[in-house]
């Protein structure tokens, strides 16, 4: 029983980072550092993403075909690997967003009822 709970929590956390990455890429291609920056800035620095942890997630998303990558040059003329959302990724983002919103609302309701 307890191991199952552990597993679910773990997936939830992983899923969160994946969701944030997909969401960030909706505005156009980004390289890894750009994604990390964007998440930090958009969350008003509330979320601190360890940059190194980003890459396994990117790797995973790429393997699943939700994002694609190719090398290009950044705005300040540096070589970087740019990630962009694929059609499948866009669909996945919709699903994940929906799921997350329902989850957040449900957790929110539980927490509120306990608080009240």
């Amino acid at each position, binding site marked *: 029983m307890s191991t199952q709970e552990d597993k679910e929590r773990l997936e939830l956390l992983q899923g969160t980072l994946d969701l944030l990455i997909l969401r960030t890429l909706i505005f156009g291609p980004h*390289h*890894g*550092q*750009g994604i*990390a*920056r964007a998440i930090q800035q958009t969350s008003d620095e509330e979320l601190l993403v*360890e*940059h*190194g*942890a980003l*890459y*396994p997630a990117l*790797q*995973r998303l790429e*393997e699943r075909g939700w994002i694609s990558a190719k090398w290009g040059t*950044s705005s*300040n003329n*540096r*070589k*970087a*690997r740019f990630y962009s959302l694929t059609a499948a990724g866009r669909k996945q983002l919709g699903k994940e967003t929906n799921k997350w919103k329902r989850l957040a609302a449900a957790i929110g309701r539980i927490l509120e009822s306990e608080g009240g």
Partner: protein
Amino acid sequence: MFRRKRKAGDFSAEIEAHIRLEAERLREQGLSEKDARAAARRAFGNVTRAQEQFYESGRWLWWDYLWRDLRFALRLLRKSPGFSFVAVATLAVAIGANSVVFSALNAFLLRPLNVPQSESLYGLQFGGGHRGALSYPNYVDFRDRNRSFDGLAMYQMTRVGLDTGRNPTRAWLYEVSGNYFDVLKIQPYLGRLFHSSDEHGAGSAPYIVLSYAYWHGHFQDDAGVVGHRVEVNKRPYTIIGVAPPEFRGTFLLLSPDFFVPMVSFEDENDLNRRAGRWIFETIGHLKAGVTPAQAAADLSSIGDYLQKTYAKDNGKMNVSLSRAGLYGDTFGRPIRGFVAALMLLAALILLAACANLGSLFAARAADRSREIALRLALGSSRLRILRQLFTEALVISLTGGAIGILGGSLLLRRLMVWNPFPQFPTNVPLNPDASVYAVAALLAFVSGILFGAVPVKQVLHTDPYEIVKSGSVTKAGRRITFREVLVAVQIAICALLVTSSMVAVRGLMRSLHSNFGFEPDDVILADTDLTMAGYPDNAVPAMQKRMIETMQTIPGVTAVGLANCPPLAGCGASRADIFTDATSDLSPSNVAASPMMYQISPEFFAAAGAPLLAGRGFTWHDDKNAPRVAVINETFARKIFGSQTNALGRYYKSWNGTRIQVVGIVQDGKYTSLTEEPQAAMFLPILQSPSSQSFLIVRSESDPRQLAGAIRSSVLELDAGLPVFIQTWPESMDFFLFGSRMATASLGVLGALGAILSITGIFGIAAYSVSKRLRELGIRMALGAQWKEVLGAALGRAVKLLAFGSAAGLLLGILASRVLSSIVYQATSRDPLVLTGVVLAMALLGLVATWIPAQRALSIDPAILLREE
């Protein structure tokens, strides 16, 4: 598994780019170059960890491990070349044997005939399933009345003389029904094939379709032969086409040189005669949805009808079906049985090879128990270690398998070209196809897994703590293990095979120089058939006499005789019933004997080197006008007249009652096989009982092969259209030696396989015992043991196994040679040479097998060993 192609370097470059971008951003915020870079790295976290994660998440790991295991395995195998060689050689032999046997199985059983939809092609068998013969009118009735086949075709094999205007040659043809090619769905390679619509009664459709091989070999692929006129047995035919290369007739054991319609070849009487059973086989495709049993019932009812309607000519015709290609069960059953037995044997060989290699592997794992224990202690998983062992096993098995397949297909190619009897062109496509390769690869893989699995238990039960602490502990085993029993059995079988093959070889050698009742050396047989050259019966004797006279003029020739079919020449000698002189009622129950019958010319005995014991031979005056005479052999004399002396001048009666006087007695000989008991034979003057089949027996002073050209050209000078086949007498006796040669060869091959297996078996046991007792042996040596004692301790068990197994095998071999003597002439094990040979061979085998372990036991340096452990 193969999807991601991203390289680790690419990933590193991305991380590097990330840190550079982050550092730049921080510098823009006012940090110094150095601080910015440090901060960027800090924000990234652990770079190595990210890279490790990338590495492990990828499927690289799998390949990487495999590659590493592979390199490690190759390194280990290179380090012990003896082991590697033995293991690879054993598997190569076992898998090679399996792939050769499987090809035979494939050729005979899985894809019997190379024709479209061969799976629905069946042959008819009549009466209890053993004879395929029909007369032509009966065939026509079966063809037209049955409702089960998409057409029924038939064929009959005949040997003929073919004259293409240049060299008259003998050739094999299939006389076939007009619908033959259409029933078999064969398309011409060149020109056209004949059809039912070409047939208009006896003598019509004089068309020839050449086989591809004959066209290729005798007409040099000349497309212009279509429309060419040739003569078959002196009758005119037109070549109308060439059959495709993959079609080689419908009987696997004999592929024809060409095909003609039967109506064009047989005369009207034969085509109309309902009695007799002379058509070789009737075949056809079953209609869709008809089962063989239904078809057999349908045909049997036609058989009943024919029996009722033509009771005088037809016996009972019970029809059953069999797969086409091997002439029903007559050849099919023994061949299928033989091939199945071979396959079983080959599988057993492979299994024994796996068992032996397994024990070799266990020995190796025992050797490496310290290394394995260390690796376990350092945190390697047992799975990783097992994987390494399996990789090693698979490297060996796949290498062995590859070599085995290669050797096997080379052997098969040789077998395909090999034609033991030049007179009988066979038709067995043994060439390995994809399924043969697939089976061999599968076998290699499975055997790798099998023998790789033997040390698994050993590894799983390794206790690193115990072994690292005290070295490998051996409980000295006194009980006999299953492995040892297995090896002893293998040795016994090997000794049995070695004994039998030596017995067979000795018998064969003896039978080449035994007394045949005639002297085949220095004799050439020139086989001519005057019927093939179109001679009418009354012209035959004159021509035969002229041929003999011409041969006598060739320089170097010492004697020339002629016979319808000399003994042991493979031409189908005949017998005839005879009666005693006192018998007046010539009914079958009064037959006194059925001796072999030879129709011979004067001087036959001189040319054949058959010594006359009493009386005289024949002269040209023993003709139709002279009293009937005969020369008989010793057995005949004893059987009919009681003794030789009694027989001379006495009379007996021939099958038709003619009185025949015995004028000479000749030594007994071998007539139909080398292993036969003495049998009665009579020799009749060819002028009194004529035969158009004529073998010239030409004896010369020197190597007879030099005369072959002269003999051929003098025959052709007499008649340029006479086909002649020239062979030395010993060559034509090959036919009779074939059985014993094959038996000897297969025993030899099996003996060699057995020897290889025994070597690996003994090697495995010896190697295992040496590596298990290394420490003990070291201590013994340190305490002053001599090399003899060390060897005794190390190899005693293996040697005992060898001695015990060999003795058992030798005994069995002596018993088995009685069976062998029915195949190989004069095979006997009561032969000191055989006995010493076997003992020597087994000793040699033991020496080879224990050489490496013995070397190892003797090279133990107690100082190093004891310090290490």
